[in-house]
């Protein structure tokens, strides 16, 4: 009896474990993995021709449904509204689900195994695509692909076009011009890393008198650390790629890591808080400090526009975005960091009518008046499609101005970072360095050695 009891207890304990390690599924045929690829090759032929004509639309309306797993929490509401507008216009049900910040991959993983998987999902670039390419529908010949302004906004695997970028973003140092003027400077005074350093250090020296700091907290909490381990780290990678004339590498050399250190030091030593406290600072903390006028500079991107401008917040006249200078290259002609890490993929394991409904929905989003307007105004996106409308987003306009003035945008090379884990290890090293529990050698090792190890692990 005791043995039975003991066994029961042990089983009860296993229950909770097994429940977390394998998600529930309604699909009982888990072993039939071999027959799915065959449908991959047959489906593209069936929908070779762009199916935008009214006749086919009517046929698909009755059956298809769209399920979009959205990556951007900032735009959740706008997507919900757009989805409702589409349903009203065509009768096709559109579900938009937004994964919580930082949980996209795991949400996608569990959602896509369900019996009604997302028909439309996102990857963040070539490295993200490598993980999901078996699930991507070949978009070659689809109507939405034909609307792209350039072929460079696609991700391919061989001849198949698997993902298309749907927005272009820029990031840099968002500057509160009003506070900068109070400190006695204008944005024209900042044309290089040396200038930025001089201004920031002067503000720090006078911070008691001025009542604000130079930079918002460089929070290393998971909601904020991507600004430094990914976006800021793009700059040394970009300049190294430029020097070596490459677009990706299996081993980074870290030529410009000293400059990376210089800019990171500038951020953490001229900030609203002590470097040791950074590990607990969140993205919201940083934004709130900026909104409250506690700091002049805030490194972030054009997606922050809707959070910064509006009722009780800033107006366009208060703000500007300046390039992140790190003291490398031709600083006089350096623009904002502009690129994309948002790619749409259509799920090839969805039902055929749902795939068609999804393609129709995408086509509508990027061509119709309602769709393009919502994307430009409500979401403040710049979309690389022919019918795009002008976005009121100040930072996006600035990017265009910089480019028009002959400055070269810094491209987004962080999509070639070998893995999420590489970024996390770099983030850990940066946090420890900022707090003084680690040294810069740890950062260098995470950057250079970590790259080689992770690249090898990911590409075997």
């Amino acid at each position, binding site marked *: 009896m005791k043995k039975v009891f003991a066994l029961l207890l042990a089983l009860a304990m296993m229950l909770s474990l097994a429940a977390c390690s394998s998600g529930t599924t309604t699909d009982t045929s888990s072993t039939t993995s071999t027959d799915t690829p065959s449908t991959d090759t047959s489906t593209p032929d069936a929908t070779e021709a762009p199916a935008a004509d009214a006749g086919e639309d009517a046929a698909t309306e009755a059956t298809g449904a769209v399920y979009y797993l959205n990556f951007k929490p900032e735009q959740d509401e706008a997507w919900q509204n757009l989805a409702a507008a589409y349903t009203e216009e065509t009768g096709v049900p559109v579900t938009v689900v937004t994964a919580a910040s930082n949980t996209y991959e795991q949400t996608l993983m569990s959602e896509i195994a369900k019996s009604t998987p997302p028909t439309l999902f996102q990857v963040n670039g070539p490295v993200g695509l490598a993980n999901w390419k078996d699930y991507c529908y070949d978009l070659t010949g689809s109507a939405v692909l034909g609307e792209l302004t350039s072929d460079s906004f696609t991700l391919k695997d061989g001849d198949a076009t698997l993902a298309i970028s749907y927005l272009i973003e820029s990031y840099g140092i968002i500057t509160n011009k009003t506070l900068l003027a109070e400190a006695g400077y204008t944005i024209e005074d900042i044309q290089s890393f040396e200038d930025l350093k001089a201004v920031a250090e002067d503000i720090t020296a006078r911070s008691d008198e001025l009542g604000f700091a130079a930079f918002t907290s460089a929070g290393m909490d998971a909601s904020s650390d991507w600004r430094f381990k990914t976006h800021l780290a793009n700059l040394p990678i970009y300049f190294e790629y430029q020097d070596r004339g490459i677009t990706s590498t299996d081993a980074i050399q870290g030529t410009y890591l000293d400059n990376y250190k210089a800019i990171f030091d500038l951020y953490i030593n001229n900030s609203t808080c002590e470097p040791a406290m950074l590990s607990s600072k969140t993205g919201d903390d940083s934004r709130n400090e900026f909104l409250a006028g506690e700091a002049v500079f805030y490194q972030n991107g054009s997606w922050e526009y809707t959070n910064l401008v509006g009722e009780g917040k800033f107006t366009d006249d208060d703000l500007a975005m300046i390039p992140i200078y790190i003291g490398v290259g031709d600083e006089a002609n350096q623009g904002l960091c502009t690129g994309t890490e948002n790619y749409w993929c259509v799920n090839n394991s969805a039902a055929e009518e749902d795939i068609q409904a999804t393609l129709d929905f995408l086509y509508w989003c990027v061509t119709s008046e309602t769709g393009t307007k919502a994307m430009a105004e409500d979401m403040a996106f710049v979309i690389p499609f022919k019918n795009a409308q002008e976005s009121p987003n100040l930072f996006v306009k600035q990017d265009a101005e910089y480019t028009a003035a002959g400055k070269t945008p810094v491209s987004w090379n962080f999509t070639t970072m070998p893995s999420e884990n590489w970024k996390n290890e770099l983030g850990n090293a940066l*946090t420890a360095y900022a707090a003084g529990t680690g040294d810069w050698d740890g950062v260098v090792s995470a950057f250079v050695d970590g790259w080689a190890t992770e690249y090898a692990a990911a590409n075997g």
Partner: protein
Amino acid sequence: MEKSIKKYWPVFVIPTFTAFIIGFAWPFLQGLYLSFCQFITIDRANFNGIANYIYALTEEQFGYSFWFTSLFAIVSTLCINIAGLAIALALTRGIRGTNLFRSVFFMPNLIGGIVLGYIWNILLNCALTLLGKPLLSLHAPYGFIGLVILMCWQQIGYMMIIYIAGLQAIPNDYLEAARIDGATEWQTLWKVKLPNLMPSITICLFLSLTNGFKLFDQNLALTGGDPAHATEMLALNIYQTFYGRSGPQWKGYGQAKAVIFCILVIVISLLQLRSTRSKEVQQ
């Protein structure tokens, strides 16, 4: 009576049994199969033999997590049970307000682990800031101590309730006989109360040891494994392997680790059950 049980047993057994098969037996078997595969979603799994197990058993971080978890499980089990028993003894002496104290001590157990983790994260970080020490996520020993404090705070009340029930079940005759024979308080505790409490001790040790080994949400919320995986316990390590990495091989590794983890917890708890059960006495 007997007849109707014979007649109607399926009505009582089948619903639970079906739930057991659907909710436990089938996912467990599927999980076992997946640990020999590479996969991204479970409906497209490719068999690849024992490679996942070889990786899992040779990964340095997994080994580190094992020792870290073991240390944590032992320390937290000791702290929780000693404190829980001490409070239970204090609250069975008929002091005024006993019921109020019991409720108050039990309450932390009603709050979920994630919430507790974040609350204690803020509390401890504030305290550390005031003391001018590195924050929880920067210094592994503080992270460890923080986890122990958190678990104690949450679990002591629960174990206390079990011990109180055990203490109240001891027949008064035993205690009275001990008193008449001139036993001191200390002797009564060691010779009468504790032997009679062994069933409660067994269950409490079992619960706190397995809780310590399987700890996940508190670990995730309090330290998140920082700094650099130094406070990453087994369950969190499995989670990070499975979700923190992309690529089919990592899902397989994570699944294999989960199976190893499961076997480990079963073995440890069976050993513990056997050793404490043998000390139980019959009343």
